[in-house]
């Protein structure tokens, strides 16, 4: 009776499937997890956090795509030149399946967005990452709305990875700012597992402004919360520090 799960699988997108990240307070803030079939914007807090933002995207991709689906990583030519080439071994070590992944290098932002829309029309694709460096005036409200609609229709998730860019109004479901965070040292002072400081800058229908420090557990493909010491939180995150120190759950209007 394989038809039953098939029907269930098709029925779920109507009420929007969500991927539970594993970090309890994060999932609570997102009403159950990160939505499939939506556009999520991921901003690197600084240019030097490009690798952290890419790693965060790769981690989300690994978590949301699973082992059987194909994922597509689109990069602008500038991203490939300045950010370094994407390594399959490093990708695999973040839990991804680079063997099933595709990497696209496109010449400019407009081509990037067109390719992303095309990819979003493809329902069997798991996740699409579109990485761009610098300002992207082509990504206006209309363009992002188009992306969001395409994602919603097919159920494919798009992550717009923006480096060296300032947030602009868009139709994205969520907007994140990602910075790298000091990891918990392993034995003999070795660098630990990937750790990120993330801030939910905006959410379409829900609270925003909270920050978390997350560790990515590659083996189980989930995030783990680590204590976010109040002293380390940079002022640039904005909002009262007390909100984050206590559970990071209070609503920000």
């Amino acid at each position, binding site marked *: 009776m394989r*038809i039953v799960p*098939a029907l269930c699988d*098709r029925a779920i997108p109507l009420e929007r499937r969500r991927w539970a990240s594993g970090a309890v307070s994060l999932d609570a803030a997102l009403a159950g997890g990160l939505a499939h079939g939506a556009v999520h914007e991921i901003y690197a807090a600084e240019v*030097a*956090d*490009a*690798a*952290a933002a*890419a*790693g*965060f995207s*790769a*981690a989300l991709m690994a978590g949301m795509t699973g082992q*059987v*689906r*194909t994922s*597509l990583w689109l990069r602008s030519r500038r991203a490939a030149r300045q*950010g*370094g*080439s994407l*390594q*399959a*071994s*490093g990708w*695999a*070590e*973040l839990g991804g*399946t680079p*063997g*099933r*992944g*595709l*990497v*696209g*290098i496109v*010449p400019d932002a407009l*081509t990037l967005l*067109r*390719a992303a829309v*095309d*990819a979003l029309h*493809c*329902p*069997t*694709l798991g996740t699409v990452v579109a990485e761009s460096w610098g300002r992207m005036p082509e990504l206006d409200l209309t363009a992002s709305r188009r992306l969001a609609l395409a994602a919603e229709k097919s159920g494919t998730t798009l992550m717009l990875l923006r480096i060296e860019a300032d947030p602009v109004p868009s139709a994205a479901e969520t907007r994140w700012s990602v910075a*790298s965070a*000091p*990891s918990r*040292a*392993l034995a003999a*002072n*070795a*660098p*630990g*597992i*990937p750790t990120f*400081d993330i801030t939910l800058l905006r959410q379409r229908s829900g609270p925003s402004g909270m920050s978390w420090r997350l560790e*990515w557990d*590659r*083996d189980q493909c989930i995030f783990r919360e680590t204590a976010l010491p109040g002293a380390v939180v940079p002022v640039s995150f904005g909002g009262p520090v007390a909100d984050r120190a206590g559970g990071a759950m209070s609503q920000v209007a």
Partner: protein
Amino acid sequence: MVLFARIGNALRLTAIDALGARLGLVVGMTLADARACHPGLVAIEQDEAADRHWLKRMGQDCFRYTPRIVLVPPDGIGLDITGSAHLFGGERAMVDLAMDRFKALGMAVRGACGPTMEAARALARYADWPATSEPAAIRALPVNALDLGEETTRGFQRAGLKTVGAVAARPMATIAARFGMEAVAAIERLVGEERMPILTLKQQQPLHFERRFADPVTHQDTIAKVLLELMHEAALALEEIGHGGRRFRMELRRSDGATRTLDIATGAPTRDPALVLRLFDERIGALADPLDPGFGYDSILLAVPGTEPVVAAHSAFDAVPGGGEGAGQDVTELIDRLSVRLGPGAIRRLVPCDSHIPERAQLALPAIECAAPTPWPEPPPGEPALRPLLLFDPPQPVEVIAEVPDGPPHRFRWQCKLHEVRLYEGPERIAGEWWRRKGGEQTGKGGLTRDYYRVEDVRGRRFWIFRHGLYAERPDPRWYLHGLFA
């Protein structure tokens, strides 16, 4: 020049060109003897596969003379010219024409014409062209022309039967009693009394589909409609041979003589007209200078230059979206579409490459060429990432201060910014590729040994840094930043 092959336990000559024959070389001589006589000999090993391939190409070229072609390996081509000789000015003119064509390619050919395939073959090999009288020429052929093996041939010669005519004049019963039925059959075939079944070369129709118009067309919808019709025709033809097209070409011929050619390629063989039309649409959209119909197109031609067999697949009734093998279909289409628009190398698949040098450990192959996903080894559980997500190639130079010369970096400057190292792990020593070095010991050619450190600075950024060269290898090794961890 000679060709040689290993026969038994010796390298023997198998073919000799005219110059070699003049020097006294013969087929069957050992290569060592030939080299001893003529040290300047150019000897090439015989490549049977290449010979067969070339023979087939020649055979296909002969379709210009007749539709029935028989390949006689290793070096013969038979043409059944019944009913087509008059088109080329008679049998003799036709043989000359065909021979001139191959001679122009620089080949040594012998040709002849006979009542049967065997007779023509024997005449070509053992008689002079042109012969005055065919039956007389056949009867005058030496007995080797019967192709019955060395022993039988010698038997005929011992019995005083030197020519085919002499053998054929004998009562067949005695020939059969002495040399077996094969000898009789060979003689009867040669003089045209018995038929031999032949296997003709199959002619592959070029997949060309053309539509000519009474009036030039300019409207884009008409062109799209015509292309769709042509594609349906192509799909039928492809289905007949069980193939699907990998490459398609459209030629738009304008009434003023200009021709515009558009090519597309697909990742998997296809016969889906709508898909091909979409890809052509993409191709037209990606053109630097748009199509200009001018006064209109006189004709449109669709060619399928590249085909591959299609494995028929049935679609599952209860296919789960996103799961199973059937799901690859629209991903393949996406790859095709993007590759047509952005160029074949735009969408790539990362494939492992057998090298321990980090920048050579992966190949980015065009996804349109390698359709199947390639497995990457799974990292061991519980370990942090040991290889970076992003790699700089070439590595970026950094200024490093280390506590001890041989030790890990203490702080480093990359892109004018100072990074204080908080945590580190290493070194992971990756040696150069010594087998690329000259003389085994010289450094530099195969690359120096690199000592890699995984470091994390105080702000939590993780880097992959290496020292290029051991202190034993060079006095002042440089430091480089090779990659970034998440």
